[in-house]
């Protein structure tokens, strides 16, 4: 962290005189590529609604953790989200309901359970607001270290599995005929989304998290011509929006997560227009 602080001190920007801004910027530089990378597969695999449901389950996990009096409820939330995603995959493989119907069932149940537990015994809901809106400025050095580890883990997973994930997402039948265990591949991916979503929820917030997981990939899809461009644009858009959003939130005094999402929405609009003009 000291090296990072030294680098920040060398940059003549007012906002970087504060330690919490230095931390937030580093967290964004780590989280943005993470979201950008995962976004490509979430969009290609049509899992946007599912990642939203995972955010809700993470909130429920945190409420359970708080109820049990655990000091770090995030880890309870990670376990709950992983169980949630595995249970969803299991039920989906044995049900004839459409995926979005099942996601609706799981998502609404998770939210209801979360609110029920959070308000049990007349408790105030206010202490959970940070998980709804998120606060990137509260991120600490050790949390950034953990995020960096997650980024490395996801990147290694991507190197090893992205070909199988892509083929499974674009044509499961073809993937299966090439000997790819499509069910297992999808399950591992959903578990990895569950972990990333849950670990990020307190900094980004439930309301905004899903836009960060969808908009970079959706924007990149507007302009990319192949898989390489798709990934490069997605990570680039996430990074640009992350840094711009943080600056905007500093100067305008608004929520960083919301500012990042709005910049991403603007990027989507521009790429959409560019796409229409270019074809």
């Amino acid at each position, binding site marked *: 962290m000291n090296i990072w602080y030294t680098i920040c001190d060398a940059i003549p920007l007012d906002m970087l005189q504060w330690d919490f801004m230095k931390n937030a910027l580093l967290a964004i530089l780590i989280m943005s590529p993470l979201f950008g990378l995962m976004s*490509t597969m979430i969009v*290609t695999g049509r899992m946007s609604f599912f990642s939203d449901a995972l955010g809700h389950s993470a909130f429920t996990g945190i409420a359970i953790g708080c109820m049990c009096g655990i000091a770090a409820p995030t880890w309870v939330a990670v376990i709950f989200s992983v169980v949630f995603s595995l249970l969803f995959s299991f039920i989906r493989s044995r049900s004839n309901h459409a995926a979005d119907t099942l996601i609706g069932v799981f998502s609404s149940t998770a939210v209801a359970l979360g609110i029920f537990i959070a308000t049990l015994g007349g408790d105030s809901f206010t202490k959970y607001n940070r998980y709804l809106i998120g606060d990137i400025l509260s991120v600490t050095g050790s949390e950034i270290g953990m995020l960096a580890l997650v980024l490395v883990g996801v990147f290694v997973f*991507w*190197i090893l599995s*992205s*070909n*199988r994930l*892509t*083929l499974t997402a*674009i*044509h499961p*039948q*073809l993937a*299966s*005929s*090439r000997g790819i265990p499509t069910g297992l591949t999808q399950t591992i991916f959903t578990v990895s989304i569950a972990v990333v979503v849950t670990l990020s929820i307190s900094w980004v917030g439930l309301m905004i998290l899903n836009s960060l997981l969808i908009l970079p990939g959706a924007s*990149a*899809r507007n302009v*990319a*011509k*192949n*898989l*390489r*461009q*798709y*990934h490069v644009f997605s990570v680039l858009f996430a990074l640009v929006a992350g840094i711009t959003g943080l600056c905007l939130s500093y100067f305008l005094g608004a929520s960083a997560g919301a500012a990042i999402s709005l910049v991403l929405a603007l990027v989507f609009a521009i790429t959409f227009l560019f796409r229409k003009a270019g074809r």
Partner: protein
Amino acid sequence: MNFGNHGGSCGHSCCLRIQGMSVKIGNQQILKDINLHMHCGELIALIGPNGAGKSTLLKSILGQQEYEGSISFAVPGQRNRKLKIGYVPQSPAFDPGDPVTVADLFACCMSKRPAFMGLSNKMREQVLECLSRVHEEALIDKRVGVLSGGELQRVLLALALEPMPNILILDEPLSGVDVEGMESLMDMLDEIRRTYDLSILMTTHDFAMLPEYADNVVLINHEIVCEGKPLEVLSSPQFREVFHRKGGVR
């Protein structure tokens, strides 16, 4: 119950032997007592009305569907070698918006290097060589979602030929392809099976091509109703029974 029992042999350069095979999903009997022999270099067409169990039979051979009975393979001169099956799936609908090129698709199937990092020169040459088997090298940088029905079938055919299989299985390869494209695709299949000594098993609803290209036709409707030379099957009373009374002929 079996789940892709590969092994066993039969004389007369037999590649695929299905004996007493049945498939039941829930309470529904999808296939019953299927017996089928396929020899090297043969092109067999599976025909039947919608829901007759054609795709289920192919899935059973591919090991993607549980079945009762036995399905065994043998590669002449290569005892105990695992039989390679090339598969071209039905209605391969790719989203036109997905930024996945033909080269990306091949790289995802053939390369250990992640396709999102781009193709190495060696892999690109390999993809071009695969596409040259179906005379479609020019499609390498096109997105799979924007290919025409015929182009997509040829690209998937090229993909199914890498690695070179012993049996090529095609599920409705002629659907969504115009008449000119059908002829060109069937010519290509004929050329491929002669060049590489492949056996081809395909399902189809387009019967006009069969007398010219198929060695044998098998009519199924949950069980084998009739099998033999194309003209024999197409003029049989069983064929008229299955199609003219129930409909389903294109």
